[in-house]
């Protein structure tokens, strides 16, 4: 399940029920939390364990490989395909 290279998470906000389960399971030692009580979507995750994706009750988290720059508006539901 684990990928080595850093990823950038993407949340489909339309389905997110704001439940916080992704934050609860996140093993990052430092806070990795968005202002909406989800995991961060505006910086890369270098652990890439994907536990947040497995715990989400509505499967609304996915990710892209981190390319070193942020897409234009990460909070604006970039192309979300689940």
């Amino acid at each position, binding site marked *: 399940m684990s990928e080595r290279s850093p990823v950038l998470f993407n949340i489909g906000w339309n389905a997110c*029920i*704001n*439940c*916080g*389960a992704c*934050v*609860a*399971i996140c*093993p990052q*030692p*430092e*806070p990795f*939390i968005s202002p909406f*009580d989800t995991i961060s979507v505006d910086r890369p995750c270098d652990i890439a364990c994907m*536990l947040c994706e*497995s*715990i*989400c*009750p*509505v*499967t609304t988290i996915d990710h892209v490989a981190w390319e070193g720059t942020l897409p234009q508006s990460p909070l604006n539901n970039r192309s979300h395909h689940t």
Partner: protein
Amino acid sequence: MSESRFDVVIIGSGPAGSTTARWLAQEGISVLLLDKRQELGAPIQCSGAVSRHALEEVGVPISEEFIQEAIYGFGIYNEAGKCTKIDYRQLKPDEYGAGESQVPLGYVVDRRRFDRYLMTQAERAGVTVQLKTEGIAYQPLDDHYCSVTVRHYNQTQHIKARLVVGADGLMSQVGKWAGLRTHIRINELASCLQFVVDKVPTDGLLEIITGHEWAPGGYAWVFPKGHGYAEIGLGVIPTLTKRDAQWHLKHFMESSFFKKRFSDCRILEVQGGGVPLASPLRTQYADQMILVGDAARHVNPITGGGIHTALSGGYIAARFLTDHLKHDRPTRAADLKAYQDAWLQKLGNKMWKLYEVKTDIFREKDIPTRDKRLFQTMAGYFSPDSEYKKI
């Protein structure tokens, strides 16, 4: 904020934080209780079932303000729909019932109103409460003090305190600030989804449905919600299924032995959350810091219930801190270990025992055997002679 100095800063005003705050203030300790939310309890991440005993034990008046429905017992189902009914109206009719001389066993509460009520009680006891205030960091200063950094309407504030209480729930960051190992294992966090619905009849019982088919690693529930409404939900352990909670809830509602009962139902609210079916944190304190409630994983690992344990944990923390601070003792980690010891003695050791019971059930690889054991354990847990019935 006119004051920038308090004896205690409490981060998070859920049941754990507000109970700790109220009991400290009643003893003359100065407390700042803060919460980042604008409306406590919202969005709802809880089904709200709590025993009457849990409320009375920590001096919470039973109020219409937060009660949605009175509860008189349990219905525990196995996968095929066989039910063990534990109805205290029949088991102990002298005590439990809706009559004038009788009492309910517990309640389903509205967490928005409940959390606000508890906060108001704390405020009336002398606590300074501040909403829209997020705890950002804390820094131990010396043996007796720390500095807490918060953000309030985009302004950064620093507060000097003798210690900080992390009551910031399951998403707790306060423990991480102190470098504690707070990580939950994926096979011990249930992914939960629930609907508040209309047109599903209930009868004053908390109904719990076990069985791998419906809720692998957890259970499904149907709770009365007042005004003729009900709550239907479930929690699943992600390592035991390839599907998400949403799929399982649909499957449960459309295919289980309750499908006829649910066939006319209308969804009024959608809620969810994570429930740790895990052990308490092994270390719940650090220099100038203690954790209480979900933040310390004070959650019943069999039922996933955490309101009672948050309330009692708050009370235990307040009792300990009152004595500690009144004697001007230092607040280094070594001095605060006694808080955890007190908690273990009053509550925690029983929770560790429950954790072992739960772990033992899920060690069983044969699904029908495991289902059978979970059903029997649940039915035994809620029976009148259960040794755990007061957790």
